[in-house]
């Protein structure tokens, strides 16, 4: 009876919340108060796939759901990206019958790195994807090793791990486990022998802390690494990106399946690869997956094309306090052969909590924007002075840089007859302020 009532109330609240456009964590929060062990009382589907990691969770989950749905699977997933225990509870109860049975073949959960250990106590994933561990929201998360320890507590017996072999810290979760599924990338044409990053989180072995060496870097500390002392090294992969042609916008999986890329970033390629791996394990053929991922455009609002007067552009939603997210967006701009202008906005560091910390600007490899393809750099927002100081520590000529505290003034400046494409790089916390001033496609 209690289960019945809790599910009923949760679903009513979810429905009401949907009407007024409220977030998805509140119904779950109420349900957990009514019945704290509700998650262990519902009957879950045979497949429970969880995805966590610093970057790409939402995109990866969206792509997994897309492939599974295309192939006739019934999937319950948290598309709102509300990934703490309350959000997951809303999802599970929202997809359950009043008798407490989740009505799908697969439950797909995006989980916050720090809260997974609490959520998975009640909902043990059958498959658990860990995409990467980067410096991310240090103002809340501490540092990658701190998050590693929190995630280690979320791995329970009977869960099969699906790990990014190219991330040295993530791979450590696979130490001493037999049934891990590994995905990763062979050498790309864009690989570098030396590190391209403002810092090196792959300098030391995550296991024994001796220095590590790399035979190739895909980006930042993601690549083919080996410890000089303890034998820890990149694991061979079960599912592999065998070739990437970013210029053409194409990746090849396992040497045979070609996927055209709607977004030409290495980042996106890893998300696709994680989704490919999960879908393969769920029994879908490589050919089918490749077809479903071909030119797939994410619907989660992370990449938005727009026009401003006669000019065209793309907003690349990046995460403040997450340097690799910025580095990836910068790489996309730098690869634009016809020439582009780049607008960077830091107005509110976070939308969720108070902070004015700008340390993370120094972890971003802004030096890359000195490349020829980038013609003008426009800085804007409340923290424009801090941006200007950060750029003064690059070799980029000051003539290439314009500053505006007011985002409106920056947009006015860009609304010119220049032919260059515009890339706007900013965070979810600030993107609305920009989009209100341009015409979204």
């Amino acid at each position, binding site marked *: 009876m209690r289960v019945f009532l809790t599910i009923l109330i949760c679903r009513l609240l979810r429905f009401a919340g949907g009407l007024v456009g409220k977030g998805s964590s509140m119904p779950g929060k109420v349900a957990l108060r009514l019945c704290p062990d509700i998650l262990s009382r519902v009957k879950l589907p045979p497949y429970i796939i969880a995805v966590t990691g610093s970057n790409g969770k939402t995109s990866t989950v969206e792509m997994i759901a897309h492939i599974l749905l295309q192939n006739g699977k019934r999937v319950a997933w948290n598309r709102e990206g509300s990934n703490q225990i309350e959000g997951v509870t809303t999802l599970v109860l929202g997809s359950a019958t009043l008798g407490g049975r989740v009505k799908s073949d697969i439950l797909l959960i995006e989980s916050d790195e720090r809260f997974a250990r609490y959520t998975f106590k009640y909902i043990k994933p059958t498959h658990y994807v860990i995409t990467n561990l980067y*410096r991310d929201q*240090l*103002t*809340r*998360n*501490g*540092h*990658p*090793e*701190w998050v590693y*320890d929190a995630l280690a507590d979320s791995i329970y017996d009977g869960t099969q791990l699906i790990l990014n072999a190219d991330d040295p810290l993530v791979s450590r979760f696979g130490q001493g486990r037999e049934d891990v599924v590994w995905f990763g990338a062979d050498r790309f044409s864009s690989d570098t022998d030396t590190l391209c990053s*403002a*810092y*090196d989180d792959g*300098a*030391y072995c995550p296991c024994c*802390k001796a*220095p590590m060496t790399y035979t190739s870097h895909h980006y930042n500390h993601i690549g083919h690494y080996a410890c000089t002392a303890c034998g820890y090294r990149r694991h061979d992969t079960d599912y592999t990106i065998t070739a990437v042609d970013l210029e053409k916008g194409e990746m090849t999986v396992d040497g045979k399946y070609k996927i055209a890329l709607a977004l030409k970033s290495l980042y996106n390629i890893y998300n696709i690869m994680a989704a490919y791996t999960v879908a393969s394990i769920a029994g879908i053929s490589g050919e089918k997956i490749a077809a479903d991922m071909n030119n797939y455009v994410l619907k989660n609002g992370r990449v938005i094309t727009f026009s401003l007067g006669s000019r065209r552009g793309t907003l690349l939603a990046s995460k403040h306090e997450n340097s690799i997210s910025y580095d990836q967006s910068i790489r996309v701009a730098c690869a634009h052969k016809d020439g582009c202008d780049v607008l960077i906005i830091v107005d509110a560091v976070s939308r969720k909590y*108070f*902070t*004015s*910390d*700008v*340390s*993370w*600007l*120094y*972890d971003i490899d802004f030096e890359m924007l000195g490349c020829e393809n980038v013609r003008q750099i426009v800085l804007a927002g*409340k*923290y424009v*002075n*801090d941006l*200007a*100081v950060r750029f*003064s*520590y690059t070799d980029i000529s000051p003539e290439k840089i314009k500053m505006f505290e007011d985002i409106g003034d920056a947009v006015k400046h860009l609304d010119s007859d220049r032919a260059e494409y515009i890339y706007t790089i900013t965070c979810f916390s600030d993107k609305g302020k920009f989009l209100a001033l341009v015409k979204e496609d």
Partner: protein
Amino acid sequence: MRLLHWYHDIMNLYGDYANVSALKRMLEKSGESVTVDRLSPGDSVRVEDYDFIFIGSGTERNQRVVLEDFKKHAEAFTKFVESGKPVLMTGNSFEMLGKTITDAQGNSFDGLGMFGFTVTEQNKTRQTSDVIYECDFLTRPLVGFVNKCSSLGGVTDNLFRVRLGLSDCDGSGSEGVRKNNLFGTHLTGPVLIKNPHFLAYIAEKLLGRAPATDYLTYENAGYEVTLSELEKRAAEEKQ
């Protein structure tokens, strides 16, 4: 002048490295020629050859690795500090100067013992906050960010008074340590860029005269924006 950025590749969270870039720039603008050496654990080092030493913040595991190496240089480092040459240690790096560090599992590691404080870590809650700190040797407060999992006991040579944010232990109202011109603080990241007046203070210690500060337009403007945001926050917290 010779600056040492010690343990640069392992105690390097949050853009700490930029403190050395900022100091190098100010000294050069003041007419000095400057070299920076970036050394790792295990590298041989002649501490006495330098005019300034910086060590940044690291993960708890990395701090343990560095502590073992750092203790080998305890005597030379102590002499350096006693000579009055400036040192800046940010984040958890200055914790190595205390008596002991006890980790979340209860293991205890000896520090340098330059100060009498003890450090106790926990692994449940990351303690983070924006901060405003004050001290007598600077006319303006310091702004910045603290990110730690430790609590200090028995601190006697405090560096800052806390106006907003975390203290060195719950409610102590003070933070960091000072001995001669060694400054140790849990402030992390580019502290000297965010606080151009603190940068000038340290540069003056090195130069023995007032450094060039006329180029700091954006640095000063950025400082004022952050300070005003944090003042607003402090006022809200009081209510």
